[in-house]
């Protein structure tokens, strides 16, 4: 299989010593600036552009680039190319240039070796991002471009003009002239200094002698020049205008009539479409999108850095040789030997796909096109990869398993939102890292035209939150290359400002940045999606937390949190109570950032476990998104069976959570829970108890507890022993109506270390509404 992508490498200029910016923070390394800036290139998908697949930072400001690659370039084509062929190359190159120009990117090193051809002989422009990603060359110490093809103004004027799309047109003009005149290379005998003088000397050309005609004369191919079609000469002359203002842009050139004269689609350039390449091309791996291919290539052991090392592009010098002779106290370094290994070598190293092909050889062809709507009989369960049962960390590194997941998720995402249910189901198993950003968006139910919404959102107008955002962004999330890059900072600021702008009821609280970070990281090239995800995430998990005055919401939340601790871990609860360690002192950063600053994995597995054994109504908050909505379809419950709002003071005065009558009925449903999960403790008088109580309940009248004591022991009675024997079950303390006794008794049970204690909201009376009161059994 032919290599599909290649690597190259260079060094960014390193900052001298220990330099700080005006804000006292260290300067961002140039390689990080390049890294952040170049991410956008990875989104470019155009038939005449080689795709950028990866940008990798190495040690000492090294940057490595992985790009789509084809072995055949205009420089390597041996046969002379026909006039229609030249026109086709010109046309496709212009389309590619015009596309990158629309992102304000110019090639600046356009030369025959950067014009590649795919198997069908179509132009694939290569290396067009180098000038852009290095900040017009500012972040690297080497000049960008081949002097032979450089426009004269590039040598002469400031970078503004030297970075106009018209510099590429000059280069294209020289390339076309070479091809039209059948020259291997213009001025091939000149050395670098002479070459630059030669290009500059062209300034003497005037309207009588065009640059093109002079090149023809100098290379003694005047006859050939005279026989060229006028339209082609006109095209080349337009490209080789000395004054940039006379030179058309790629977009303007595309309007030239010459491109209508030829039926460009049928023209063959060189010898392409050889039978053997045709055969190669039907290898199913070639049907995968390049990003997937690269992702799998790396999983199958592909390592750009080691490939470059093997090819001698990355060499290392023993550190002992780079020790300077003298370091002055203020930091300047003297007598350091120049490291030869850091010299520029822009050689391109194709990366072989053979090991990936071998690794995926056992995968049947059908796996490339899995059925997602109907589980077919042909694809039985046995065909599922054996890796499915392994730990996540292994699954994420298993080539074949990831292959299946990636193919499946790509197809599911293509069908979104129709495939929402399947995505949720599959995501429970795992999410392939390659598609995590889009899968999360699907899980958050982001759909519709979020892009225009984001575009229309004001992200620029200064406002009072700017100062805080500007202070926070450069110092937070600097652990990550993407988020610490300047581009990352800009995106951070825009998304945060957009969110504040679109949610006038909310404000920027420190901590919001932590919620924003994962979405920017996952959707670095799609700010609108990052914003849409954030906008969907916050109401889902942190509803109203970012109100300007959020104290009512937060305090209710923390009071509920205290109840839940009491419910699940009475020992911890009692200890915290004893030392007065209220959640206001420690839990705010957890909830305000959704635990983004703690070990989330442990947190997540614990919280899922707790969630599963916590009755929904015990977490009821009036400030939650849809308070009290317990999905009990077809069961029109009486409102008294649902929860009702309590003030924060009331919540704080009670130690245990309340449970709704509806939840209790649910727990008492023996068809759902054949082994009872709940024990009702009826604290009313025995007379009332014997008139009717909850099924299976025990009676400990509140008068048996010495409620005058601060923490009384359990009363000595057989019922207390039943309580202890049922430790672990949900203990629902029920009194008469909303009398305070149930709350007090629940607190005593809690102080005595019993877990899962809660109070029946509105007391035992609510069961009457459901006709569930039964005579107690005589045990």
């Amino acid at each position, binding site marked *: 299989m032919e290599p599909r992508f290649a690597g190259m490498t260079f060094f960014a200029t390193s900052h001298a010593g220990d330099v700080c910016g*005006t804000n006292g923070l*260290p300067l961002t390394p140039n390689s990080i600036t390049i890294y952040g800036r170049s991410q956008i290139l990875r989104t470019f998908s155009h038939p005449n552009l080689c795709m950028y697949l990866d940008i990798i930072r190495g040690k000492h400001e090294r940057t490595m680039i992985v790009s789509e690659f084809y072995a055949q370039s205009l420089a390597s084509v041996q046969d002379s190319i026909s006039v229609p062929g030249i026109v086709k190359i010109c046309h496709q190159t212009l389309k590619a240039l015009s596309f990158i120009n629309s992102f304000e990117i110019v090639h600046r090193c356009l030369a025959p070796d950067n014009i590649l051809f795919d198997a069908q002989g179509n132009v694939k422009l290569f290396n067009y991002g180098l000038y852009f990603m290095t900040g017009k060359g500012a972040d690297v110490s080497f000049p960008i471009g081949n002097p032979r093809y450089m426009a004269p103004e590039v040598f002469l004027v400031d970078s503004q003009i030297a970075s106009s799309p018209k510099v590429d047109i000059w280069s294209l003009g020289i390339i076309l002239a070479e091809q039209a005149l059948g020259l291997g290379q213009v001025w091939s005998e000149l050395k670098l200094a002479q070459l630059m003088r030669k290009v500059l000397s062209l300034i003497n050309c005037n309207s009588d002698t065009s640059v093109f005609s002079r090149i023809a004369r100098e290379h003694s191919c005047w006859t050939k020049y005279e026989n060229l079609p006028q339209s082609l000469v006109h095209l080349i002359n337009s490209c080789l205008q000395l004054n940039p203002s006379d030179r058309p842009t790629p977009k303007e050139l595309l309007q030239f009539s010459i491109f209508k004269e030829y039926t460009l689609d049928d023209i063959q350039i060189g010898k392409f479409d050889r039978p053997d390449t045709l055969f190669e091309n039907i290898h199913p791996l070639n049907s995968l999108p390049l990003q997937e291919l690269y992702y799998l290539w790396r999983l199958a052991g592909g390592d750009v850095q080691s490939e470059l090392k093997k090819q001698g592009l990355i060499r290392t010098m023993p550190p002992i040789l780079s020790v300077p002779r003298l370091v002055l106290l203020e930091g300047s370094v003297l007598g350091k030997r120049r490291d030869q290994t850091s010299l520029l070598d822009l050689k391109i190293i194709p990366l072989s796909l053979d090991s990936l092909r071998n690794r995926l050889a056992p995968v049947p062809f059908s796996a490339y096109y899995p059925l997602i709507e109907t589980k077919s009989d042909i694809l039985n369960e046995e065909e599922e990869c054996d890796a499915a049962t392994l730990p996540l960390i292994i699954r994420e590194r298993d080539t074949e398993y990831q292959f299946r997941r990636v193919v499946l998720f790509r197809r599911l995402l293509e069908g979104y939102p129709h495939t929402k249910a399947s995505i949720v189901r599959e995501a429970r198993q795992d999410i392939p890292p390659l598609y995590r950003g889009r899968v999360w968006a699907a899980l958050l139910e982001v759909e519709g035209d979020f892009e225009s919404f984001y575009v229309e959102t004001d992200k620029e107008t200064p406002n009072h939150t700017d100062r805080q955002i500007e202070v926070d962004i450069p*110092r937070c999330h600097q*652990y990550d290359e993407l988020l610490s890059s300047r581009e990352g900072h800009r995106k951070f600021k825009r998304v945060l400002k957009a969110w504040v702008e679109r949610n006038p009821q909310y404000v920027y609280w*420190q901590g919001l940045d932590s919620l924003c970070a994962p979405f920017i990281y996952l959707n670095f090239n799609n700010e609108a999606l990052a914003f849409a995800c954030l906008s969907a995430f916050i109401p889902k998990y942190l509803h109203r937390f970012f109100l300007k005055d959020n104290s009512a919401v937060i305090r209710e939340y923390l009071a509920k949190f205290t109840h839940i601790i009491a419910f699940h871990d009475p020992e911890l609860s009692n200890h915290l109570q004893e*030392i007065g360690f209220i959640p*206001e*002192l420690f839990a705010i950063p957890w909830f305000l950032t959704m635990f983004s600053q703690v070990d989330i994995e442990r947190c997540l597995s614990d919280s899922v476990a707790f969630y599963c054994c916590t009755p929904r109504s015990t977490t009821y908050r009036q400030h939650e998104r849809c308070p009290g909505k317990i999905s009990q379809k077809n069961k029109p419950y009486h409102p008294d069976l649902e929860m009702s709002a309590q003030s924060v003071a009331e919540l*704080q*005065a009670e130690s245990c959570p309340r449970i709704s009558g509806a939840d209790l009925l649910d727990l008492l449903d023996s068809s759902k829970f054949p082994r009872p999960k709940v024990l009702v403790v009826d604290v009313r008088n025995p007379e009332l108890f014997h008139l009717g109580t909850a099924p299976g309940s025990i009676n400990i009248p509140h008068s048996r507890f010495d409620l005058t004591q601060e923490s009384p022991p359990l009363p000595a009675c057989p019922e207390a022993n039943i309580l202890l024997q049922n430790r672990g079950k949900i203990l629902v303390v029920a009194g008469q109506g909303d009398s305070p006794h149930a709350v007090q008794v629940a607190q005593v049970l809690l102080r005595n270390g019993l877990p899962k204690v809660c109070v029946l909201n509105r007391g035992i009376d609510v069961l009457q509404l459901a006709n569930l009161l039964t005579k107690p059994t005589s045990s």
Partner: protein
Amino acid sequence: MANRGGAAQRPSPQTQGKICQFKLVLLGESAVGKSSLVLRFVKGQFHEYQESTIGAAFLTQTVCLEDTTVKFEIWDTAGQERYHSLAPMYYRGAQAAIIVYDITNMDSFGRAKVWVKELQRQASPNIVIALAGNKADLANSRAVECDEAQAYADENGLLFMETSAKTAKNVNEIFLAIAKKLPKNEQVSGSGSANQGRRLVESDTSAKTAGNCCK
């Protein structure tokens, strides 16, 4: 858990004199370096990039002062103005406060003065307040003159030092100066039993029922 901080490393009062425990709170505008000062004092470290503090962080550090061991319980608070409503919970019952400003930022000095006023009005009457002009390593971009801050501190009876969490300049010194100024009669026994169930929030003098702290 009762002997938080480890009783082992705490010298016993019989052999080593008194042990005093003080609650100290750091206040000041955001990004002036409160967390960095604490990190330098407690762990001797400095991070170029210090994540912003949400809510507050709690740390402890012990310093020795002649025959007295002083244990600081440090509440490092969030600087953003929005978190202001939480601040009383942290400075209530505190015996000491460090109010931090950034010497390259005049606004942060103004904010520091507001904090001083608030503490003088609402904190414990005997609270020891220190003013720290942080980021002294950035003297090139100084916006607040040392003399001006010193004069303000003298007027208000504050300790004052210019500090740098980055270079460690005056970091231990300012905590030591506070320790010296604090009254040493509020002895806390190091023997352990008296420590059990000790309340983290309020000092012994202003005990309130838990759960009412943020009112």
